[in-house]
């Protein structure tokens, strides 16, 4: 299986993760500016980000398994994808234990972290194909 063939498909998944992060971040910023505490909609937004990240992780995992890529590069991508999957969960946990604006801000930090990690994965991925 050629990694370059699947990389074109992966670009859509990568875009979906970044779009989900941007939409969630926008929601959090608007509610922070409006002085609102953590709402259920914030957890839904984090769940959407998590689903996008998991789809990306599975997709990239299948890609990597079939590709002839150095083991250390594989480990690097997998560690980034793992960290991305943990981000929204931690954000939700912090939002649950701190149902105030600080909790919403923690969620904002979580999606910003996921977006930064996604950008790094895209960067690493481009060197592999």
């Amino acid at each position, binding site marked *: 299986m050629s990694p370059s063939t699947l990389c074109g498909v992966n670009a859509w998944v990568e875009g979906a993760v970044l779009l989900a992060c941007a939409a969630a971040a926008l929601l959090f910023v608007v509610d922070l500016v409006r002085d609102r505490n953590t709402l259920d909609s914030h957890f839904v937004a984090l769940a959407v980000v998590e689903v996008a990240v998991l789809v990306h992780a599975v997709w990239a995992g299948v890609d990597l398994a079939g590709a002839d890529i150095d083991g250390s590069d594989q480990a690097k991508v997998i560690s980034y994808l793992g960290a991305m999957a943990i981000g929204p969960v931690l*954000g939700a946990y912090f939002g649950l234990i701190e149902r105030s604006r600080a909790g919403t801000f923690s969620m904002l*930090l979580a999606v910003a972290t996921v977006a930064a990690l996604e950008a790094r994965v895209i960067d690493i991925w481009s060197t592999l194909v």
Partner: protein
Amino acid sequence: MSRPSAELASGWGRALVFAYGVFAVAATGRSVLQIGTDFDRAPLAYSLSLLAAVVYLVATTSLLLGGVTGWRVAGIAVGIELVGVLSVGALSYVATDLFPDRTVWSHFGQGYGFVPLVLPFAGLAWLRHTRP
């Protein structure tokens, strides 16, 4: 008198713990990878990456533990972090030969969106707010 044990990791302190936790994991991963794979390439830079990782881990833990001791240890860690990011940031521009590869604090944390530069100021402001 405020109660640092109750306040250090609550409210906005919890967001600070989250940010420090993220950087503790990021810096630890980076330093372990750099030191484990190619230490001879940039020993100073990679050692500073490890120092940054330790500082972030200590800051996160002490903020979580709270109490007067936690507040003091967090203060020392955040102080070292501030000195580190300012000195390494300046040196990475002035003495480029010292840093063949980047650290978390290189170019004032440019590789991390300058968050490493903002974080110690936020930490010191929070510690001042929760001063015992």
